[in-house]
């Protein structure tokens, strides 16, 4: 029984539809044969790989033949597949070979083809690729077999089973259909009979290892698909490599070794994945950016990269094979783009971007010298989280007003015996000295099953986060902890030290800790060593139970610092490193925010100081709420200090208080975030025209550059939600009809929700450019940006009036002749006042 059809999919017969046909065919005893009459190839429909190998393209004439004892039923299924399923197999998938782009692509980057990934630590960087390799799975595979071919085949079967289990597990965790479809295709490659037969065939014919046989099959099918002239099929070669690579890793284990690589200057590190220690071993001196094939946004390596201000893009699959070592690379970790050998257009685009970032940085650094306060002058300390003297130095340089938490674990790592009391005293004194007249909160040892320290043997635990860690192990390591506390106390004679205990769960624990401190003080007192007997003692709030003991705790301690990373994790009982439950981990959840309010209200009722030292403190969207909640201090990563200080300056505290009232009665974190976004958009007052958005010496030499420069000007001033979307909206208008109006003036404009406030930006060009080649030489460009959500009616009137004025020569001349931004603004304001 046969059915003839014309192949209906634009992408050709690729792995996903082939996998579905294979599934169906394997349900029956009958043979199901696929024949491509156009190119003459034939395949068993019971093998995905065989089907894909027919290299069938859109429009090819095809024939499916069913033969066997159950052919009647099989044929009905096959026919239904051809008529109903196959034509729609790609409907729900993103367009062929291009990952879906959520954000528009800036015009100047349109002709480039960067690699794409997920930006996880923001920033831009230019440098040379430094490949950091954990060895290629196939190269290290043993070539000869350990035993006979049956033993090797058994290894293959076990490995396939294990990989299948892994894929099934990630399948269960995914909800988006395209992702699932791809995983399913991988699964069917993994279980493909032809692939299996080929590998076993090699094993039988030659005395080679199963690894070598898998490598042979990977090469064979990889080459076959690479030869296809269909880009989609070519990419499927990567799927084969992916799946076969996983099989080999399952057999021989992964051979990720430590990194012994010295980076040259301006290095862009390219790697499969990095552990935190591998990342640290790279050294921050020459490292400009990190590009990873794998690694989650909340992995510790990424958190480290963020803390050090190293831009990072992850999820760049096959980064190591696409980016040659030593190649010139530009990393855009704002958009998740990686450019190899960037061309002039790309360079010019990033010249504008780098310049904008530099200007933003210099504005921020001015503010960092001033005391931290809100727009209305309310003081809030901005401190920094530190784990080394270098961190303290960076923090102080960025204007930190204290060290909100100094993590002392670093003193105990990488050594066989713990540091002596004298050594610790010297170290803490150095930290206090570096901080000068700013207070430093020294946190006592916070280690446990998840953070092993060689000199302190601790048992491996099932569930280290709920186990024997931090102060819970102090009773068994009294000498060690006492020497740490004495070291801190001795240092307190030389600077503003505060002592903080991590992971407190009960008041009783605090009483014991205080007793311990008293004992240490007595010991020092008895031998006549100076210390500050009024050294403030505080605790971290990481355990939800503490929220309900606040009144009692306030009587015992001088201050609190909320560790939101752990508190959130314990609050919702969800490990944020586990992608299947990490959606539950959300410090923006109103329930969590209500918890924070509880802490602050109790503490302030008793006159106690409350800081926050979790990552949340440095998240721009969280800052207005933390201000509204009434935190006394926000302690953030050293590199963020000046930025948070700058953000704080723009926040009106009455507005923050109202916002906070609203978010506390919200139902979902999404609602909280939405309210915050509206607040951030509307809290600052802007003028329609302003000297800050006038550039009388614009450098751009093309229309695209000038538009980008103007958009960057608006972005720098905080007037845009998303610069790329605004640029795109301007271009959409330009594409329908260029906005040059003759007389050397162009008036590009847009109306989009990505604009926060109605704005008129002005650029005078050093050299006139053609706005609508070959005509329209332009030397003055007026960019009008209007928010899309209404509320701009009064501005529209002004802009209409301005547009009318531009028709008159006297007005144009006054604008052209204006020699300073102030003058330009006053000419434009004349319009504003008239209307």
């Amino acid at each position, binding site marked *: 029984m046969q059915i003839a059809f014309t192949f209906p999919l634009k992408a050709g017969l690729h792995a996903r539809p082939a996998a579905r046909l294979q599934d169906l065919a394997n349900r029956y005893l009958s043979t199901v044969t696929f024949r491509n009459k156009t190119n003459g190839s034939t395949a068993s429909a019971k093998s995905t790989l065989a089907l894909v190998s027919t290299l069938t393209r859109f429009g090819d004439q095809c024939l499916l033949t069913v033969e066997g004892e159950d052919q009647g039923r099989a044929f009905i299924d096959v026919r239904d597949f051809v008529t109903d399923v196959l034509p729609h197999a790609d409907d729900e998938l993103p367009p062929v070979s291009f990952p879906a782009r959520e954000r528009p692509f800036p015009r100047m980057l349109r002709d480039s083809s960067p690699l794409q990934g997920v930006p996880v630590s923001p920033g831009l960087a230019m440098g040379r690729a430094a490949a950091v390799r954990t060895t290629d799975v196939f190269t290290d595979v043993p070539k000869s077999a350990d035993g006979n071919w049956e033993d090797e085949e058994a290894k293959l079967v076990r490995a396939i089973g294990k990989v299948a289990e892994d894929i099934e597990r990630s399948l269960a965790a995914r909800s988006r259909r395209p992702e699932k479809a791809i995983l399913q295709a991988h699964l069917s490659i993994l279980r493909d009979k032809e692939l299996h037969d080929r590998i076993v065939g090699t094993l039988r014919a030659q005395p080679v290892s199963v690894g070598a046989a898998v490598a042979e099959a990977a090469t064979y099918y990889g080459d076959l698909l690479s030869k296809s002239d269909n880009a989609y099929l070519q990419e499927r070669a990567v799927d084969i490599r992916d799946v076969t690579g996983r099989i080999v890793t399952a057999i021989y284990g992964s051979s990720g070794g430590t990194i012994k690589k010295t980076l040259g200057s301006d290095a862009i590190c390219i790697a499969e994945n990095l552990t935190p220690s591998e990342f640290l071993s790279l050294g921050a001196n020459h490292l400009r950016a990190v590009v990873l094939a794998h690694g989650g946004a909340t992995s510790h390596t990424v958190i480290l990269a963020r803390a050090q201000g190293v831009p990072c893009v992850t999820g760049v699959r096959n980064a190591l094979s696409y980016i040659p070592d030593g190649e010139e690379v530009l990393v855009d970790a704002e958009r998740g783009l990686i450019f190899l050998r960037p061309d002039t257009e790309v360079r010019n685009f990033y010249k504008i971007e780098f310049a904008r970032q530099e200007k933003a940085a210099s504005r921020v650094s001015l503010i960092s010298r001033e005391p931290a306060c809100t727009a209305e002058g309310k003081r809030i300390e901005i401190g920094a989280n530190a784990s080394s003297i270098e961190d303290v130095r960076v923090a102080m340089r960025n204007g930190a007003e204290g060290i909100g938490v100094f993590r002392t674990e670093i003193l105990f790592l990488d050594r066989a015996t713990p540091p002596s009391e004298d050594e610790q005293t010297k170290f803490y004194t150095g930290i206090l000295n570096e901080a000068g007249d700013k207070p430093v909160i020294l946190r006592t040892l916070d280690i446990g099953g998840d953070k092993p320290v060689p000199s302190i043997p601790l048992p491996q635990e099932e569930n280290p986060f709920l186990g024997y860690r931090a102060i819970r192990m102090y009773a068994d390591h009294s000498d060690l902890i006492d020497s740490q506390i004495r070291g801190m106390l001795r240092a307190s004679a030389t600077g503003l030290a505060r002592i903080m205990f991590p992971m407190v769960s009960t008041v009783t624990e605090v009483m014991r800790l205080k007793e311990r401190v008293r004992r240490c003080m007595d010991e020092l007192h008895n031998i006549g060593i100076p210390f500050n007997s009024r050294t403030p003692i505080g605790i971290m709030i990481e355990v939800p139970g503490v929220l309900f003991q606040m009144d009692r705790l306030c009587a015992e301690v001088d201050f609190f610092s909320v560790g939101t990373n752990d508190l959130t994790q314990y609050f919702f009982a969800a490990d944020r490193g586990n992608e299947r439950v990490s959606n539950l981990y959300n410090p923006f959840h109103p329930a969590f925010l209500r918890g924070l309010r509880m802490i602050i209200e109790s503490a302030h009722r008793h006159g106690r100081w409350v800081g926050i030292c979790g990552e949340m403190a440095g998240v721009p969207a969280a800052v207005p709420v933390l201000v509204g909640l009434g935190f006394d201090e926000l302690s953030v990563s050293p590199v963020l200090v000046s930025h948070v200080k700058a953000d704080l300056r723009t926040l009106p505290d009455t507005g923050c208080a109202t916002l906070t009232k609203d978010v506390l009665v919200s139902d979902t974190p999404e609602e909280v975030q939405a309210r915050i976004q509206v607040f951030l958009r509307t809290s600052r007052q802007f003028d329609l025209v302003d000297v800050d958005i006038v550039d009388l010496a614009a450098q751009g030499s093309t229309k695209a550059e000038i538009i980008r420069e103007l958009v960057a000007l608006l972005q720098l001033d905080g007037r845009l939600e998303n610069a790329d979307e605004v640029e795109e909206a301007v271009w959409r*208008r330009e594409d*329908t*009809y*260029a*906005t*040059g*109006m*003759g007389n050397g003036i162009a*008036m590009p*404009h*847009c*109306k989009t929700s990505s604009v926060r406030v109605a704005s008129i930006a002005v650029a005078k060009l050093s050299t006139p450019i053609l706005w609508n080649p070959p005509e329209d030489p332009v030397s003055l460009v007026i960019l*009008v940006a*209007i928010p899309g959500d209404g509320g701009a*009616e009064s501005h*529209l*009137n002004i*802009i*209409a*009036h*301005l*547009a*009318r*004025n*531009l*028709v*008159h020569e006297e007005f144009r001349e006054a604008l052209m002749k204006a020699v300073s931004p102030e003058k330009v603004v006053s000419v434009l304001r004349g319009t504003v006042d008239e209307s």
Partner: protein
Amino acid sequence: MKLVAVTACPTGIAHTYMAAEQLEKTAKRLGHTIKVETQGSMGIENALTDEDIKGASCVILAADIVVRDMDRFAGIPIVEASVQEVIKYPEALFQRLPH
């Protein structure tokens, strides 16, 4: 000559009004009377009344999008132009008007 005109452009933020102003300015210089309706982001402004349209010798449509309420101009000669053309070369447009 008594003229009426409508201007309209895709976003209706700027060029609709530039074109209107240019038409008014040029008409005045050439000794015509003109009333220009703008169909822009603020809706229809300076709307042409039946009175305005009656007795007009010509309707100028300076538009890059569809103009609303075309019925009212039935029986009157229409001269069409792009907004851009009106802004940049207003004289050329006026030369195209029926005499």
